[in-house]
């Protein structure tokens, strides 16, 4: 186990390093922040631009800039935004909890909705309820997420006046963004629950449990569900990365000041330190989530360690 762990952690470190290198390199290809800083200015000369670049440390060779950034990451200092000099660390400290809150709420919502629906479909395999749930879940996958989001705003904020359209100041703010992402996640998870439930239900110990006269609810939710938890956990671990990526669009519609908004603005402004910081933190999170899944897996199923 220890060897497996060390190997996976080394791989994770390698992955994060490559990600940072890739991002640092790509954002520098995308354009010059000095120009962004002069936006709207009347006349400025190449000399003005060079002054700005020098002040930002962009006159240094790429390797020097990258090494500075990596040394910073190791010591926990992500540098400062080019726009106003706010520390990237404090920007992330504000945005990350919000993004995590949104991501975890949507995931919880998706799990809460998909387990009963998935089980219901599995129990009624082949019947109308099953087909209905399956097709409905596909319909849920067929909307662009921003479209669903805007429709929700029009319905719940403007027509009904129940929920605030945007922001992140009050608890009610999270309902619509979490619901939008939750619906889409539910659609995929229902199918997963249904499939693994079907496999479990035909297993012998379920038959035994039933024959012992246990209540159907106990059989389903206690015995059967426990068994299909592993594929579900794996899948959720993998979903986490996609979730974080997809959050950009949702955060924008609902003006949720999370990591997605931060990164989007940073690309548009060519704010290198912010983008590098955000992506690095997100990559660390995703890699950690996957590592955790691997470890849980390794504990549960020793065969995986040898692969």
């Amino acid at each position, binding site marked *: 186990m220890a060897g497996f762990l060390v190997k996976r952690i080394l791989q994770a470190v390698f992955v994060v390093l490559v990600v940072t290198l890739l991002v640092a390199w790509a954002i520098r290809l995308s*354009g*010059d922040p000095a*120009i*962004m*800083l*002069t*936006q*709207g*200015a*009347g*006349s*400025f*000369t190449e000399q*003005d631009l060079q*002054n*700005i670049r020098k*002040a*930002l440390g962009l006159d240094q060779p790429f390797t020097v800039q990258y090494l500075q950034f990596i040394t910073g990451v190791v010591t926990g200092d992500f540098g*400062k935004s080019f*726009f*106003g*000099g*706010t520390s990237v660390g404090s*920007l992330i400290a*504000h*945005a990350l909890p919000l993004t995590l809150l949104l991501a975890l709420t949507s995931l919880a919502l998706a799990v*809460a*909705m998909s387990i*009963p*629906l998935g*089980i*219901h479909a599995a129990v009624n395999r082949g019947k109308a309820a099953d087909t209905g749930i399956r097709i409905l879940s596909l319909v849920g996958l067929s909307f662009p997420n921003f479209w669903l989001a*805007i429709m929700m*705003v029009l319905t719940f*904020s*403007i027509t009904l*006046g*129940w*929920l*605030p*359209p*945007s*922001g992140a100041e009050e*608890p*009610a703010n*999270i*309902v619509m963004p979490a619901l939008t992402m939750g619906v889409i996640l539910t659609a995929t998870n229902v199918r997963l629950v249904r499939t693994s439930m079907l496999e479990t239900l035909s297993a012998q110990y379920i038959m035994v449990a039933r024959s012992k006269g246990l209540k159907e*609810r106990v059989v*389903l*939710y206690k015995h059967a569900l426990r068994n299909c938890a592993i594929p579900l956990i794996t899948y959720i671990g993998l979903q986490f990365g996609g979730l974080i990526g997809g959050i950009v669009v949702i955060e*924008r*519609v*609902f*003006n949720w000041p999370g990591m997605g*908004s*931060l990164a989007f*603005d940073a690309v*548009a*402004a*060519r704010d290198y330190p912010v983008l590098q910081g955000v992506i690095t933190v997100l990559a660390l999170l995703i890699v950690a989530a996957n590592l955790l899944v691997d470890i849980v897996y390794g504990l549960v199923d020793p065969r995986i360690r040898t692969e």
Partner: protein
Amino acid sequence: MQNLGRNLRAMLLAATAMAAPALAPAAFAAGTLTVTLVQDPGSWDPIDTFLVNWAKVGNNVFDGLVQRGPDMKLAPGLATSWEQSEDGKRIRFKLRENVKFHNGEPFDAEAVRFTFERLLGAEGAKGPQQSNYNAIDKVEVVDATTVDFLLKNPDPVLITKLAGYGGMIVPPKYIQEKGDEYFNTHPVGTGPFKVVDYQPKVSVTLEPFAEHWGGKPKLDKVVFRFIAEPSTQVAELQAGRVDIVTDPLPISAIPIVNSDPRLKVESITGPTVQALRFNTRTGITKDETVRKALIMAVDRDAIIKQMLGGQAKPIASFQSELSFGYDPALKPLPFDPAKAKQLLAQAGVKPGAAVQIDFRGSDANFREAAQAVAGYLQAVGIKSILKPYETNVILNEIIPAGKTGEMFQQGWGGWTFDYDNTAYLMYHSGEKWNPYDNIPELNALLESQRSMTDRSKREKVLQEIGRVVADKALEMPLYNLNAVYGVSKRVKNFVAPPDSRLRLTDVTVD
């Protein structure tokens, strides 16, 4: 089945519980005004940015030596009077007395000298403001309430520039003690409002400064919220959680705001002009006749009336009617598709010839306008390829490097309302926004007016420049878009400023 029912019930209960706090209509704190901004400038230091979204806030926090309100007239600000020497190279300002910064620091001649030394020195070199004030050689303190601005060369627009942006006066002691970086996020000025809270990317909150020389503002609090997505801004306005959607309110939202009895549209002629500049080096637009034909092919009045809901005015030169140098006698080429076709045939352009139109993809209004232009060009047999670019890319790489298609968007909103500020950068050879043209006649005219102190003589030259540009058909002038605000009717005494620089001193809310 039972399980499902029970679970669904539980879920519904949970959902209602979450929604409950919002069910009550959003109640406003008395005297609080909420305003949207599309972007967080990141720094509130006047010399760090040149963004209109900075000015919407900064104009309330800082004062300049002079002031310019919604009527566009220059008025005394921190200086009560000023006089210019014969040669235009020295301006003497008499300063207002008993003025304090928000932190209690007194405002005096030393603060003026510090402000401009900082702007023109190493700190200013890191930002976009310095180059605008390069005409200033140095600022000399005469006594505590008198300063002299000594200029390298006369700058006819300098006094206007002192009313905003880089010309805003900052507190010397505060900056020296706390440092430039602290000042970025904790700005202090002499303005009618002081910044009490700044949450990057979320909001900035202002409260009135009781000791302001112009009197205490009437509002209790102003909250500026950063909302990037225009449709979300409009939704917030409709939901009653925002009082003012600042310029530009998307044109598509005008009917929505108009149909809501609690809201209204405030619209005023602004500085923003849009044109499609021609690539005069390559493609069919090399030929002046072709350029004129293309201009005549497009019904700009219909675009203004039908598409922009009348929220724009036709232009003949690249400036608004408020701009110094505007010539009411200059008329744009008429819409005449038949003549356009004839000119094209005469120039040997075959039907089906193509032009590429480069523009900023994020500009929703222009996105539609560009499609309309393409539609009209198609009607005279010219095929258009529309190429949306990210703002940064088109401004940074495409236009200055001369890598555009046959036509490209030039959008300009010079806040000084002086044609020189646009024309020089657009038409003088070697300038960033002028990658293709080198016309000696224009170069000479542009240079000559810069040293003129006689206003009427200078105005004549500026008008002449507009005429030469139109005559050579360097651009297809499109329109001058109004500054459009969406405002809740609970807001009183709000006068929409043409230049987006809000000053909220007299505003109240019900």
